[in-house]
């Protein structure tokens, strides 16, 4: 009873937050609503006994990705009026993407092979904790796809760094090692002079 109630609360807040992400006027508000949406979907996953996925969603998306996202959005000086203009122009392509997603979801949910309604939760099915089950599958059955995915991510990281990294000879660069190794004699000059007499 309480569980069902909680589900509807989380689901309602999730839908509300998701709608606000695309309708909020201020981009910072949009980003914060996206955080709320992530958080509520994590709560829904927890209720489905997928605790590893739920907590990982909070850890990675809420804790790291959205923080950086929020940074960028806060730094941008966005002209709100010019953002409104594109709304009608991009509406058809947005609607198309939305339709494709709905059809895809319908295929998954309606499929005979994916039994969502009477499925067993991961913890019950394997008889061990969620994290352990996921880890053992990931490193045995799906070892190669997992490794390949990680290499793809590594390539993306290297590419992103290569694209943004450029040598700028004119910047003032601090050499920390040299700073640390500085001795007193290199910086301080003690001058001996005769004391002056007060007149």
């Amino acid at each position: 009873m309480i569980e069902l109630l909680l589900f509807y609360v989380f689901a309602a807040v999730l839908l509300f937050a998701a709608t606000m992400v695309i309708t909020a006027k201020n981009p910072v508000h949009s980003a914060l609503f996206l955080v709320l949406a992530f958080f509520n979907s994590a709560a829904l996953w927890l209720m489905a006994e997928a605790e590893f996925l739920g907590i990982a969603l909070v850890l990675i998306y809420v804790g790291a990705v959205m923080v950086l996202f929020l940074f960028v959005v806060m730094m941008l000086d966005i002209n709100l009026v010019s953002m409104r203009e594109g709304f009608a122009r991009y509406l058809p392509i947005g609607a198309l993407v939305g339709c494709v997603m709905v059809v895809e979801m319908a295929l998954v949910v309606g499929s005979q092979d994916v039994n969502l309604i009477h499925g067993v939760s991961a913890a019950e099915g394997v008889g061990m904790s969620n994290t352990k089950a996921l880890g053992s599958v990931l490193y045995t059955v799906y070892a190669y796809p997992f490794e390949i995915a990680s290499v793809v991510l590594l390539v993306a990281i290297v590419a992103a760094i290569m694209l943004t990294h450029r040598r700028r000879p004119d910047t003032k660069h601090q050499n920390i090692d040299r700073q640390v190794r500085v001795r007193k004699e290199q910086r301080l000059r003690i001058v001996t002079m005769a004391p002056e007499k007060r007149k």
Partner: protein
Amino acid sequence: MAEFANLVWIVAKIVALVVPLFIAVAYMTYAERRVIGWIQWRKGPNRVGIYGLLQPIADAGKLLMKEVVIPQNANRFLFLLAPLFSIIPALAAWAVLPLGDGLVVADIDAGLLYVLAMTSMGVYGVIVAGWASNSKYALLGAMRAGAQVVSYEIAMGFALVGVLMAAGSLNMSEIVHAQQGPFWEWFWLPLLPLFIVYWVSGVAETNRLPFDVAEGESEIVAGFHVEYSGMAFAIFFLAEYANMILIAGLATTMFLGGWYSPFHGIGYLGPIFDLVPGTIWFCLKAGFFLFGYFWFRGTFPRYRYDQIMRLGWKVLIPVTVVWLVVESVFILTGFGPWF
């Protein structure tokens, strides 16, 4: 009806945890000022009540009665919400921390992950406060805090990976059980580099000295909470100290054997020391870390911002990665009494 009774029981457990926590936070502020006073050869607060013991209550009363000033061009809603973003994760993470054998609000399997997720959310309070204040100093403080917390989270996460490899579980109680024994069998010894990395990044995560560039009084006035006053400021303060106690408690749980006495399981000494309840041992060990916080504050000058980033990315993260490899060798060879 049974569900309702269960709900009441959960709420009772939460209250039994949070009320002592708030009292501890209040007296942390007192202890900090006294300890810093001693370090700096002065007395600290000693006028309100005997030995100044009523000082935190006087401070709380003062903050309660002050006006919460909202800057004219601030984003009113987020400005008032930001302190809550700060305090809620700081309190929520306490749910999985075992204060004694079986003395835990929620004994969940993915406890360590949960803690990591909750501590990573605390930064929202700082960022939102900095942005909503519509002030240069506040935004600068928020930027610094955000970059710092995101960077040190990685080192912290790697240190926790080392703990979970050694314990073979993500459950906090299981982690403590894995360390059962005298003090040299706790994880601090085989995981010494990770322990130090965790401690340093714990100080950085809570934005405490010598890593307090988010506040940096001499540079950016008070950083992200420069526009806050009264109770809104008090909540930020509360969150900071609750986070400090949390980091101390986590370090105790993961590296110093949680509720076990330092001589657990040795001949005659073990049973004598076991007479002291486990919660007291837990608090003593956490107190050691908390004293460390004050000690650092009284000893070290503030790091420069680029030095903080260098320490996080170029020193702490490589150390953790190397030690994870070493630890894997330990586990494979069954090294010492730990693995």
